């Protein structure tokens, strides 16, 4: 059985970030990175650009082979981990091989969440999580005239935009009453919907699919309260769920994801988890939550890697804060923290700026003297500064008034003043 000091399962942002942190403190400790795909590391976030044709699938990789050889890291590609034995400190691979480890990081990410819809398993459909998925969707685009996107989240909307640009008739079906409900309030969501409609995408909200059935070469979606939709191609983008099936019976504490403390440690000594697979502390509350977002994977991976290497400089995870950026049909949007809070209830003060002519929108959510949520569309705000204000729980003091009038300048001034 092979032995390694550090074993990392999963080669995307969390795993790569952990590797960097380990090598910053421990130059020579034996390190093995395992990836289930036989590919160099890449980000799932790039995939819709492969679908659109913007990005060549050959150029998506974030590291080359030299990177690993130079750092003395063994990169095991195309190897699927099927089980973990925390007591023996070993993992088993599908090939039958086993690897013994001193410290283990679970950074296996997430897989597409499939909604429970009658008939889904008996019709052809696509998901988008791997490079293979993206290449397959891309190669099929020319064969279809119509496509339905099930789920109006970030991935679904990105794909819908590309499909429309390829001349397909696109219908987005979202079961909630507005698009991107985790990030944007009704004003922003209305703007996003109209931008997509102008782009030639049909958007149906509060659309519940009762059943899907085969319809010739395509698929028919039967909806509650709407006429059915018949399409050539179906893409399911209903969110993601942590990839934890291989942990069954391991004794590692899982709920929706792998439960970790604020050092990214699991309940088992010597085992950490980070990224989309981890269920970590919520920044705003005591509960645990999944936060499958790229920057969070980077931060969690770094904390885990530092912990694994016994780096005394490791700092505790500050808690998951919802945050993302969204580029659509020529517009740029972002959201941080409690951006979706819709109305004032005494606890929060909400300042909103809407400029329809310039397609400009921003919204700030204050609680007492602190900013707890920000959203913007073509806002000119610096999202990273806004994120820092939220996570630092920065009291705005006499800048508070300026934040209402000109939050972009106020943010830069705050940055210069408080964290340079």
């Amino acid at each position: 059985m092979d032995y390694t000091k550090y074993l990392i399962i999963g080669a995307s942002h969390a795993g790569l970030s952990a590797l960097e942190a380990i090598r910053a403190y421990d130059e020579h400790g034996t390190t093995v990175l395992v990836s289930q795909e036989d590919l160099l590391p890449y980000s799932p976030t790039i995939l819709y650009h492969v679908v659109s044709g913007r990005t060549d699938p050959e150029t998506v990789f974030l590291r080359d082979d030299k990177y690993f050889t130079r750092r003395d890291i063994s990169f095991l590609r195309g190897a699927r981990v099927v089980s973990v034995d925390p007591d023996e400190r070993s993992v088993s691979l599908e090939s039958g091989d086993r690897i013994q480890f001193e410290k283990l990081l679970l950074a296996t990410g997430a897989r597409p969440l499939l909604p429970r819809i009658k008939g889904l398993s008996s019709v052809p459909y696509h998901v988008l999580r791997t490079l293979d998925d993206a290449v397959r969707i891309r190669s099929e685009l020319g064969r279809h005239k119509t496509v339905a996107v099930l789920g109006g989240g970030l991935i679904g909307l990105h794909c819908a935009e590309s499909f429309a640009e390829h001349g397909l008739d696109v219908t987005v079906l979202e079961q909630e009453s507005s698009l991107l409900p985790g990030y944007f309030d009704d004003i922003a969501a209305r703007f996003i919907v109209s931008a997509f409609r102008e782009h030639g995408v049909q958007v149906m909200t509060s659309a519940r699919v009762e059943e899907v059935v085969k319809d010739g070469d395509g698929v028919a979606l039967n909806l509650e309260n709407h006429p059915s939709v018949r399409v050539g191609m179906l893409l399911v983008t209903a969110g993601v769920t942590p990839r934890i099936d291989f942990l069954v019976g391991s004794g590692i504490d899982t709920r929706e994801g792998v439960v970790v403390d604020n050092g990214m440690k699991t309940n088992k000594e010597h085992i950490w988890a980070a990224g989309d697979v981890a269920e970590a502390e919520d920044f705003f509350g005591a509960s645990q939550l999944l936060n499958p977002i790229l920057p969070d994977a980077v931060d969690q991976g770094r904390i885990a890697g530092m912990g694994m290497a016994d780096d005394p400089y490791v700092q505790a995870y500050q808690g998951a804060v919802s945050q993302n950026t969204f580029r659509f049909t020529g517009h740029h949007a972002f959201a941080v923290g409690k951006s979706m809070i819709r109305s004032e209830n005494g606890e929060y003060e909400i300042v909103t700026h809407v400029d329809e002519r310039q397609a400009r929108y921003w919204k700030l959510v204050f609680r007492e003297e602190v900013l707890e949520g920000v959203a913007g569309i073509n806002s000119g705000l610096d999202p990273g500064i806004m994120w820092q204000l939220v996570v630092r729980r920065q009291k705005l003091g006499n800048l508070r008034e300026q934040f209402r009038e000109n939050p972009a300048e106020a943010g830069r001034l705050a940055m210069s003043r408080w964290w340079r």
Partner: protein
Amino acid sequence: MSRGHQTIAVHRERCDGCGKCVEACATLKTGSPGPEASRIKVAGDGKRASFGLAVCRQCADPRCVSCCPSGALLRDEEAGVVTWSEEKCVACGLCTLACPYGGISLDPVSGKVMKCDQCEGKPACVEVCDRGALELTTSSEIYNTWGDLEDLVVPGISSCLGCNSELLFRHTLRRIGSNVVLATPPAV
């Protein structure tokens, strides 16, 4: 070979908000002085009492690079500059969320990512600043050797603008262990 990197030092207290740096940057990069396309941004408090400056710090340990899903952002270890590839960039904007300093943003006209590239060693903003608020300084080799490993002070600032002690003390203490107290920390 020397590994001293050039870095733009900001002396905020000397800035009077004249905005020449913004104009010079935008003009050089886009041909028009409109402040929206400037890579350096000046923010005032409305009373002209204090100003903030946002510009890329060319961090040694850049979060924008870690958060880039397309490999468009890289740190050029030789030049000490964070580079951006237009060809690879998909304009997702995650870098603008990753940067705590407002050092990378989106050009509202072109929709493209924009950041300071230090004008190949001759930053237009520094050349035009006659208030002494912007200065091109060189960080030293020993700083870079340790800073490359991990910048434990403020990413991108050449450690107290020239003093290496703090960074070296931090790295040393980190190796010795957390039960050691440094009796004479470097002054700020």
